[in-house]
């Protein structure tokens, strides 16, 4: 289990992390969310011991992260980098060796990854000759070749076309199935929802929300009730449940109601008040939770 406890980090007068805490169960996929400059990358670097926290601690299975442990981790930084003049295959093998694989094993795995990522045509070409998307695939192979226990991916989908994004998604799901713990950040909420079992929203260097989607939804104070038709009778009936009108569209009325409302009673009341054709309780999406957590939307 990865445990991040109240970490703080400053660069001169800039406080990048004020108080970030979360924990990730082994084998889970964890989404780190936050706007640009919120502290996601600094958090990832701190987990990997690239940066030492000014306060707080990071542990993996209860132990402070050391060099030997770090070799069993994988990392795909946001700013991608490869040796431009080194051949793709050679490069993947090199990073495998840096993570403790022997050359023959690294070569065998490199060939398998090259085939899987469909970059065989470029295997012997210098990395600089590849497109940005293909370079990114090489970097993913470099990060995952040694089958890391913990793989940290900073914006792994950025720069990938839909086909390559699907390839990456399949790769990550496969790693998850093999038991790897994944931590990833992305601005593509739908991709995170496909992959992640838990999340942490960071803003201005602080944890704003953390937990599984169910836990985050449970903590959400309101629910959206969509009811049709949009009539005065229904609006009046809704007022009795402490609801406020969120909007009206295509003849349907959106109502914000407290999360702990008795929805069955509400439905019965609405049926008695008007001839309703629609009643739907809409759970907050990850996007809604994210926006609320960073203080952009209520």
């Amino acid at each position, binding site marked *: 289990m990865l445990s991040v406890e109240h970490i703080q980090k400053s660069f001169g007068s800039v406080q990048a992390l004020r108080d970030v805490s979360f924990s990730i169960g082994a084998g889970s996929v964890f989404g780190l969310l936050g706007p640009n400059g919120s502290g996601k990358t600094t958090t990832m*670097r701190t987990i990997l011991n690239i940066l030492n926290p000014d306060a707080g601690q990071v542990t993996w299975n209860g132990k402070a992260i050391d060099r030997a442990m770090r070799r069993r981790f994988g*990392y795909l*930084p946001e700013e*991608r*980098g*490869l040796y431009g003049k080194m051949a793709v295959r050679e490069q993947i093998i090199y990073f495998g060796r840096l*993570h403790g694989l022997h050359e023959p094993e690294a070569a065998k795995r490199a060939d398998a990854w090259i085939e899987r990522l469909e970059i065989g045509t470029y295997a012997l070409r210098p990395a600089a000759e590849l497109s940005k998307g293909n370079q990114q695939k090489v970097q993913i192979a470099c990060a995952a070749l040694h089958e890391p226990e913990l793989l940290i991916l900073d914006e792994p989908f950025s720069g990938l076309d839909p086909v390559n994004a699907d390839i990456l998604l399949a790769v990550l799901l496969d790693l998850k199935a093999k038991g790897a713990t994944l931590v990833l950040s992305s601005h593509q909420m739908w991709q995170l929802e496909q992959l992640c079992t838990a999340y942490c929203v960071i803003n201005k260097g602080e944890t704003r929300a953390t937990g599984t989607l169910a836990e985050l939804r449970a903590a959400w104070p309101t629910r959206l009730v969509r009811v049709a038709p949009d009539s005065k009778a229904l609006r009046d009936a809704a007022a009795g449940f402490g609801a406020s009108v969120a909007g009206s569209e295509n003849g349907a009325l959106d109502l914000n109601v407290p999360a702990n409302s008795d929805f069955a009673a509400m439905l019965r009341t609405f049926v008695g008040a008007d001839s309703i054709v629609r009643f739907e309780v809409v759970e907050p999406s990850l996007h809604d939770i994210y926006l609320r957590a960073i203080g952009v939307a209520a």
Partner: protein
Amino acid sequence: MNDFITVYSGDLMRRIKSRPFIIGLVLGTLAIVALLKLPTMLAPTIVSQGTNILIVADAPIAAQARPLLSKTLTVRGVVPASTKIDAALLKRFDADNAVSIQDVKTGIRITIYAKNPTSVPSGRVRTALLPLQVQHATHLTNAQITAALDARVEVRSLSTTFHSVHQAEAAQGLAMTLVVFLYILVLVNSQFVMSAVAEEKTSRIAELLIATVDPMVLLVAKVLVGATLSVLQLLVWVGIGIALGSSGSGSGASSAAANPFSLAGLLGNTLSPEVIAAFIVFFILGFLQISTVFAGVASLINRTEDLGSISGPMVIPTVAGYFIGILAINAPSLPVVTVTSFVPLLSPFVMFARMAVTHVPTWEIATSIALNLLALWGIAWFAGKLYRVGMMLYGRPPKFAQVWEILRTPS
């Protein structure tokens, strides 16, 4: 240790296969070959220019002049003084120049009629005919004059380091060669280390590396790869120098004295084993100090274009060390030489140069090495701090205050 070996071997192979290294090695080798061989190859051509002469003089003087001139020039023939001298005459005797010699009251008058005035061996003619000139002026015998002119100043060495002037001159020549090698290798390969660090930072691969390997391992491996390549280049160049030097004639000492870039002297034991060992020790110390500073500072830049501006001021100690080293070869006892042979960054050049040409007390050598090791420790601490933080520092170049903050922050 495994991390170090992987990084070191990976980096070494990348650098050995890199175009700049191959080009540098080939060009350096060609330069050594050119320096050693071109003078020998060109000498016969240059020396033979205008050396075919025709003597124009009356029989008695011609008889005296001919053996003197034949020592250094090719005499194609002798014609009487009354002969009309023109291009046709020279062509008939296949001569480049006609040397006319006339007896006058104060000695002899020498006139050279040249087919090509740009290649007239007037100095050699004058020197060759000096005994004849003096004889005609003083009426001494030829043998007396030659003996007087051949008298040499004899030098006998009282030095415990060198037994002869030849040996001292050879040592100076070799020391000069080695200081030049030291300078080129340290400067060029330190800049290679610097650009390798900058490349990893600007290509953003540094973050991936630092996430896996300790930054100090990366720094040390990079510096040692630079040192290995320097030694490799040195071995290639010295090997070629020795091979070419030993293929020539003459003893080691005399060859080295004749040509400071000839390494034949190494075969002739011109430099003692202690001096050769000192060269290796000071080369390693100098290289490690300078390239470690370069690597640390390179981690602060964000664009490879900034390398030039940042390396400029850092080259100054190396250049200063080189010039003082050259000075030390000719004047090893100067106070500035003695003092700077203890100053880290300078002493690798200066102390070695002093040792090559004079006796340096053991305690001075030991002190200099100790001070250099101490400085290397300090430089490694300084560069390590910069590197550890600098490699992850992007955006605006750091200000001095930020750098100071980095150095003050505990690791």
